């Protein structure tokens, strides 16, 4: 019993981390993806308001003409009830003066009424007081913000709008987000969807191939070097991974810019200066794949190197006695024993490449002309980057959710394809 408790105790930090850093984000992505959440709806919920811009389209939601007219013309009315309240708060004289000159009148904007209150013989002198006083006469709900539904309905009641329209108007007035599946139908409808998907597939396949092949090449080639030299080379090839991405990509920029390294060197041979990253789509892809490829290959190199070292050297010596050359050693001894690390790298890298976009963001930002815009970058651009300020959290999450599903499906596929169970079987030697 105690040992079981101890086990759970040891697992707790891991469980908590998984819950906070994996399950919660996935859960939130699922939730967000089924909402119309954006900057303008806010995240934490909404209030109730109809402003004059919304009023323009209110007739399109099936509200009667009379209701629309009532909403439009309610304004600020000088009524006896309002005057009584005014007299209580700001004195009889002010109220009396207003009654004499303006009883029964309607002001469309609060500002017009404020001007009147300011120019009375017994004016309301403080700005804030004038606002408060003007609000005593408010009949309109246009531009007013109500915290709760009941407050909004109560105000709607006062405007005299037909109660039949109340429910529709209340729903229309809600400023917060609502549940919807529109994001997914929108994704199906958008012409860019297919292109982003194709870009992602191309990016993952090419980068992954580069990662594995180049990682293997580095591991094998450094394996046959003297250990000191090998370690130096590995350290150099490991640089892309340990450098901060911003710095690493900045170096690539220097390397490929119009006045960068390649342009300067090729300039000596009469090639006109040009941007070796952004000039054409092919170049952009080449650079994007290389940037990510080197980062991934360095990890592959480390993993594959240690895997090769784990192969009993006696096997290699034996093969040499049998007259095998280096290529035959690689082909018949090393590679067959690398199934597990290659599987691991392939599955790990597929999943991480699918969701990785930071290097592309820093290098091409999806350009030229959105030709290197991968799915994950599109999700970022939609949810967190917009010049006009209205960020589409819901739609961005829908993009991300698609990735989550693809990731899960791929993981399942990999597990089956590479026969994970067998790989994880207990070693027979200990039985």
């Amino acid at each position, binding site marked *: 019993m105690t040992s079981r408790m101890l086990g759970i105790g040891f697992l707790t930090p891991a469980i908590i981390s998984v819950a906070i850093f994996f399950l919660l984000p996935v859960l939130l992505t699922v939730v967000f993806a089924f909402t119309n959440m954006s900057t303008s709806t806010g*995240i934490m919920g909404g209030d109730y308001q109809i402003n004059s811009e919304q009023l323009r389209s209110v007739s399109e939601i099936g509200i009667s003409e009379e209701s629309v007219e009532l909403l439009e013309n309610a304004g600020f009315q000088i009524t006896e009830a309002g005057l009584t309240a005014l007299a209580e708060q700001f004195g009889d004289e002010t109220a009396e003066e207003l009654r004499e000159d303006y009883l029964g009148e309607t002001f469309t904007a609060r500002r017009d009424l404020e001007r009147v209150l300011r120019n009375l013989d017994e004016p309301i002198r403080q700005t804030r007081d004038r606002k408060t006083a003007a609000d005593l006469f408010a009949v309109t709900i246009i531009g007013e913000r109500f915290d709760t539904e009941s407050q909004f309905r109560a105000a709607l009641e006062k405007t005299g709008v037909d109660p039949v329209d109340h429910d529709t108007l209340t729903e229309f007035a809600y*400023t917060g987000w609502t549940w919807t599946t529109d994001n997914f139908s*929108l994704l199906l409808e958008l012409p860019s969807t297919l292109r982003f998907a194709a870009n992602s597939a191309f990016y993952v396949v090419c980068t992954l191939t580069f990662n594995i092949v180049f990682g293997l090449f580095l591991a094998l080639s450094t394996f046959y070097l003297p250990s000191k030299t090998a370690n130096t080379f590995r350290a150099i090839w490991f640089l892309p991974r340990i450098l901060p991405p911003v710095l690493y990509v900045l170096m690539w920029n220097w390397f490929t810019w119009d006045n960068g390294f390649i342009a300067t060197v090729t300039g000596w041979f009469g090639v006109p200066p040009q941007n070796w990253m952004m000039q054409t789509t092919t170049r952009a892809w080449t650079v994007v794949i290389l940037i990510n490829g080197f980062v991934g290959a360095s990890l592959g190199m480390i993993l594959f190197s240690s895997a090769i070292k784990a192969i009993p050297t006696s096997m290699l010596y034996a093969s040499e006695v049998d007259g095998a050359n280096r290529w035959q050693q690689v082909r018949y001894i090393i590679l067959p024993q690398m199934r597990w690390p290659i599987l691991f790298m392939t599955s790990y890298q597929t999943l991480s490449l699918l969701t990785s976009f930071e290097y592309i963001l820093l290098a091409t930002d999806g350009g030229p002309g959105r030709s290197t815009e991968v799915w994950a970058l599109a999700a970022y651009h939609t949810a967190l980057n917009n010049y006009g*300020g209205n960020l589409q959290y819901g739609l961005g999450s829908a993009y991300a959710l698609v990735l989550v599903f693809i990731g899960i499906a791929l993981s399942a596929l990999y597990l089956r394809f590479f026969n994970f169970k067998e790989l994880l079987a207990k070693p027979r030697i200990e039985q």
Partner: protein
Amino acid sequence: MANLTRTTALIGALAGLATTAMAEDVTITVWAGGSNDSDSYRIEAIEIAADILEREAAIMGDELNITVEGRRDFTGWDEFKQGITLGAEAGTAPSIVVTSHLDIAPWSQAGYIVPVEDYVDLDSWPLNNIYPNLMEIASYAGTQWGIPQDAESRPFFFWRETLEAIGYSEDQIDALPDMVASGEYTLQNVLEDATKAVEMGVVEEGYGFYPRVSNGPDYAQFYQSFGGVLMDPDTGKLVLDKTAMTEFYQFFVDAVAAGVTRQNHIGTDWNQWYTEVANGRAAFWHGGTWHFGRYATEGNDDFWGTIQFSLIPAGNDAGRANTITHPLVYLVMDQEDDRVEEIAAQLIAIASEPRLNSLHAIQSNHLAVAQAQSDIDLYRGDRWASEATEVLLASATSQPNHLQYGAFSEAMFRGLEAAWSGVQTPEEAVAEVEAQMRATLGDDLIVR
């Protein structure tokens, strides 16, 4: 004597107690987006205003202590806007923000900001002196949400020496702004002259016409040059004019084909771009009024002798020469404590004093927000401020405050990028933009 001293001491102590009891400490945080060193008065004007408001309170017998905490060290607009919106959700938003007027629509809808008109009298000084069209830009849906912090405009620039080299006389160059304004000199002429400059070897290939390197209000100007309209005034809906959009894209495609603009121009480093245009590497380009100061720091001390400026030329008969002003605005953010909102709004009003705003306008090469600023020596004495106001501001329009304008502008720019970089033809790009806009904007869009 001793008695008197004692009495004084007593009164002093009582007064001390009284003031301590009445003292009010308020912390006002100001975040300014897109601001560098020369924009420091976006925050400092609030600090000066705080001093004035404290003195006003002291005269009324209140002790008001305002601490102003400013922040403008954001890496870009993205970080700034994310910080604001997430802060607003978490209840830790700053009291005052200086941001694009385009944020008013989404932020007011979300309840992140409160109307400045709830706290200040728009009919009194200095707010009644601010240009009405700028006040309009800082309002949305009939509510005055913010107060314009500065004005600017986005002119077209010509490098005088290059024009002379391709055969323009000095008088002709001086007459260019008027010719542009009247529609005699169009973007087609720009293309012809830029081609000439490249062919004659006056500028390098790709440097004939050297546009802005990232998305921004500037590109909507070219849409307008070809007759495009951003918003239908009657219905308040956004407008996609397919002909104008196609011709606008086609102009950039033609510029690439003629070798005057680089196909991979978008994404060029801003610092590189500034250095190049400030020192005559490009024949034609476009930018903003605040570039005047930047060119000087890039080593061009003789703006008037080297550069001519005008409106963005018309593209064809359907369009017109135009420029867009994209004022930043002071907004008050929703706070737990209503009193903080009130003080923030009052500070904004005081900071809009012509004299205080002129400090910002001149230091950062922006244009005035209030009419009285042209009577202030500091402003009137500045040649750039007064000439730019004269040539540009009269024809300046703005982008609409509309909830969906961000999506509209984003789609428009992506289409431009696709056509410009040769990934799609202008027609294909416009077709995709139309599909994209119809899907994302729905009823908020009119397609012509």
